[in-house]
């Protein structure tokens, strides 16, 4: 558990630099479609947060949603976490394995929140194509956007570990050290896929970093504040 420091507030020694983080609870909402590995990714994120010394809660709905429905998992961590679900408007990072799902859940995020998503499409029954402008709309709504181009991603990693690539991007946005993610990954995937997962995680971080660098450059040019990124994101 993080130790409370009377001067600096709560300090988490496991986070690089041991910065004071106050009482902030971090909220990550992972979404996708049944069968995409949303729940496994959230298990790994929760385990990484525990590894980093945080209190953790996670909540999802099992059952009917597995049959092609929309799937979501709330992951919360911080010095002390009460509600198992993220209050609407408090999502810091929305992570989606499907394009339109990122938009479906956007209303749970606070203005300025980050989104990372794979632009893969799984159309609901009876839908042939999404309306144009989904990606632009996502970029417009969120403070920080990391978009994974599915066809580019597929040429580098197997579809089975896309969720791990997404975790790589999430790791850039939350106060959990990389080693904690890697330890959590090792604890959750079969030994023979550990390497593939570690690679996917590194690729996710790489794509995420360049997206963030590009956004910073653009922001500087436009005179706007740069996107927030851990570990500067400290309250």
């Amino acid at each position, binding site marked *: 558990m993080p130790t409370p420091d009377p001067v600096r507030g709560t300090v988490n020694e496991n986070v690089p630099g041991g910065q004071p983080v106050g009482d902030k609870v971090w909220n990550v909402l992972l979404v996708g479609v049944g069968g995409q590995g949303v729940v496994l990714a959230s298990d790994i994120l929760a385990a990484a947060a525990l590894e980093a010394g945080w209190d953790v*809660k996670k*909540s999802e709905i*099992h*059952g009917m949603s597995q049959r092609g429905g929309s799937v979501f998992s709330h992951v919360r961590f911080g010095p002390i976490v009460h509600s198992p*679900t993220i209050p*609407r*408007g408090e999502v810091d990072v929305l992570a989606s394995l499907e394009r*339109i799902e990122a938009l479906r859940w956007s209303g749970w995020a*606070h203005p300025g*929140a980050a989104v990372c998503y794979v632009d893969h499409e799984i159309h609901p029954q009876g839908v042939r194509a999404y309306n144009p402008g989904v990606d632009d709309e996502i970029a417009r709504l969120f403070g920080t956007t990391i978009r994974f181009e599915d066809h580019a991603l597929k040429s580098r990693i197997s579809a089975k570990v896309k969720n791990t690539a997404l975790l790589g991007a999430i790791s850039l946005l939350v106060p959990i050290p990389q080693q904690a993610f890697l330890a959590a990954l090792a604890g959750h995937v079969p030994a023979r896929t550990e390497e593939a997962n570690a690679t996917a995680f590194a690729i996710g971080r790489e794509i995420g970093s360049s997206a963030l660098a590009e956004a910073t450059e653009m922001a500087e040019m436009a005179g706007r504040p740069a996107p927030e990124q851990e570990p500067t994101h400290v309250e």
Partner: protein
Amino acid sequence: MATKLLMSGNEAIALGAYEAGVALGCGYPGTPSTEIIETLVRRPDVYTEWSVNEKVALEVGLGAALAGGRALVTMKHVGLNVAADPLFTSAYTGVNAGLVVVTADDPSMHSSQNEQDNRNYALAAKLPMFEPSDAREARELTRAAFELSEAYDTPVLLRSTTRLSHATGVVEVDEDAPAPQRHPLGFERQPAKYVMIPSNAKRRRVDVEDRWARLREAVETHPANRVEPGSSDIGVITSGVPYEYVREVLPDAGVLKLGIVHPLPRRLVEDFARQYRTVYVVEELDPVIETQVRAWGIACHGKDVFPSIGEFSPGTLRAALGLPQPETIAEPAVEVPPRFPALCVGCPHGHVYNALRERGMVVSGDIGCYSLGVMPPYSAMDTLLDMGASVTMAHGMDAVLQGQPDRPPVAAVIGDSTFAHSGLTGLLNACWNQRDGLFIVLDNGTTAMTGGQPNPLSGERLGREDTMHLDYGYLARAFGIPEENFAAVDANNRKAVTAAIDDLAGRSGVRLLAVIGMCIIEAKDLKKIDKFVGKRDARKLELIEVDAHAHA
């Protein structure tokens, strides 16, 4: 050494029961309760089973407890309706070894047909009920529930909800803890206590009242109930997961946190309420606590501000209390099409619905994956009430529609697990009363809806051990269904399915059709453990295609 683990509420309940030295765990699957037994099965020193239904499970559990084995029985909220009969009288017999019955309620009906609040059962059956608010407490209160059960010789209810059962939290586990202590085994004959003929029940009725008086006293000081003093003039009485929302939204309020929701600690409530200017009772669904608190003359707010429908969230509390809500991202300007659940591509249930819709049949439906037959593109289900009701409601329709000139053809559809759970008795009723009707069992080799549990028609028991399976052909004969009124067909053979429906629809009397296929997710799981071919071939033996016994 103590290790911190992440655990769902269900896993924590299983852990608590194990640590309490449980000798037997059983239940019937049902979201959100299912993973409790699926966790307990990993303990080789505990006897575990899926029972045929909840009533059976509760009776198995009580039998074990009377014989000295602590027992855990699990079910979803509507399951307790099925088990209500033994539940009420088990309060009279008492238990000997501890008996804890878990009811997992589903506020907001994420995966249920109704939203009943099972705290009402604790009141009606005079049974104590615990309600944990997170995984850590689920483990602790399960252990406490076994202690209380034995100390007061009573079954104890443990209420969970979806946001406890399926929420994960940190639980500290001591790996070097000594092996759990067990209650001594042995059945002591005490007919006056265990044989509930009226003369005995009348005496036990008085004992129940006595026990209740002692329990009322016990909850005043039980550590599951605690006061967390606050710095504001607001006091909140709450329990279960809503406690977490209260802590999130009203960090300065005083809180009376009830780990036992029945009976309520009256003195504790009165003392607490006296210290605050405004008292709120924060509880999901029914005003169970509020009604009692008000009856004691304590002014409080409850359902006058908080909703009675659906689960709470921090946002629900903020809205009810007039607190500001966090600002959210704006509504997207691009349309987001809805995503409804649907049968998997290749699901063996699909074709039957196409055939029934094309024939304009009234379809009396039931609960399971196959309930999705009500959705497009099938749109082929007209009623759905509770498990087993497909068979019996079709029977009732037939009883009054018979003889009507434009009487529609009625078919009942029921899954294999549901058929074993409560369809069999309805079918026997139809046969016995010589009704007319087409009864179709959609057998996909598993209990798919709840994640793929074995059932009495699948040839396996909990843990995938091989066992018997009910044979449809012998069943039909035993129920007196004439040979030509029975068929079993391969779900993947569309022509055969259609031909069987047409053939049987044209006959009279009770007709039984078993449509035998395999859930594609079950097939994948079986392939992983090299059991697919064996199971598929065994199931083929069941098939008696209509053409094969050429109706003369």
